[in-house]
């Protein structure tokens, strides 16, 4: 089982009770529930847009509070929150939220985070190469269409089952599988183009 899903299950007993009280309209219980998920959501938001990560999380949790009665437990609560956040992110791109000048430097901070991941088994050059590739794939994910980006994000970073993703996005499992296949194919083509370009530059 992956790291994220284990964390989700560890606090499920408390979170279920909090969730039920929040669905009955208890704002304080919802606040406690938010505390459990804020950190993980912030990391997901940093992957989507480091410049507006905190704003995205706040809007996502506020949206979740408004529609919390619509959550039926067909997917993990965290997946449901991430689906709301992806929707908010799509709206943000459409409306072109204003970004503070200082926030532009947070992109660099996020890139630094990846480069600084320690890996004792590898040579520094190899680590740098792998980190570069990871960053490039992330940039390619941002270039995908919103529907493809949503399924890729939920499968890669949230790690829910196909059924959970389908319920969170409100579509069938077949649609999720098809979108994943197409999105992965597009990502493969994008990365292959870059590899060919870098090889020709080296020659």
């Amino acid at each position, binding site marked *: 089982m992956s790291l994220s899903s284990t964390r989700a299950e560890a606090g499920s007993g408390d979170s279920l009770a909090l969730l039920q009280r929040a669905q009955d*309209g208890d704002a304080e219980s919802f606040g406690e529930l938010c505390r459990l998920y804020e950190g993980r959501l912030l990391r997901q938001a940093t992957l989507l847009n480091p410049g507006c990560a905190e704003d995205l999380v706040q809007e996502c949790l506020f949206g979740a509070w408004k529609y919390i009665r619509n959550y039926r437990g067909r997917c993990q609560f965290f997946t449901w929150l991430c689906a709301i956040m992806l929707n908010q992110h799509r709206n943000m791109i459409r409306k072109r939220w204003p970004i503070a000048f200082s926030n532009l430097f947070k992109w660099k901070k996020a890139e630094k985070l990846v480069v600084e991941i320690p890996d004792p088994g590898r040579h520094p050059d190899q680590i740098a190469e792998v980190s570069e590739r*990871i960053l490039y*794939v992330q940039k390619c994910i941002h270039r995908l269409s919103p529907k493809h980006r949503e399924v890729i994000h939920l499968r*890669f970073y949230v790690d829910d089952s196909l059924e959970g993703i389908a319920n969170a996005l409100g579509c069938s499992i077949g649609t999720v*599988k098809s979108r994943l296949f197409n999105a992965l194919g597009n990502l493969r083509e994008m990365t292959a183009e870059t590899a060919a370009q870098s090889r020709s530059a080296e020659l």
Partner: protein
Amino acid sequence: MKACSRNRKLLADLALDHLDDSRAMQMRLHLEGCEGCRIYFESLAEIYAGQRGYLEKAPEAEAGFTLHHNLMAQIHGESTRPDSAVHWVKWAAAGACLLILMVCVALVSREKKTEPRVITGFSPTQQIQISSPKSREFQPTLSDYRRKAGRSFENLDALLSKEAERRSGTGDSVSISTLIQ
């Protein structure tokens, strides 16, 4: 070398861990003998494994106090009950619809009032048409002259003198009784 077209979806499923054990084993056996499929699978698996590895190794982000504080302020500022915003929008939409309906009804009834009324009950040749005061034609009566002159007595005097001159030319006499008629 290209990957087998019929295996591409299965290779994507294998890279994303969606295949059951027997099917995965079958695909892995195929990969040993097919170089095109192997290259295709490795490129997909690298993308997936790279991103998964990044997420698991990256440190957990810590949400600041301000984020939670702002969120709770937003929740308490909006309402202490969920779905309140949705209800508010519904009521506002219903109110707007009602208002539009009332305005339409008022406009239609006003249109009906301004239409000329026809008193029936006589023979068709004797129908009397009563029109609204504004649309009525000017009649040489005292009230019409007063209306035309406004509040000015000079204008009224001038109008009456003009009418008297006109009638004296035709031989008609002008008196208050004829004007009132």
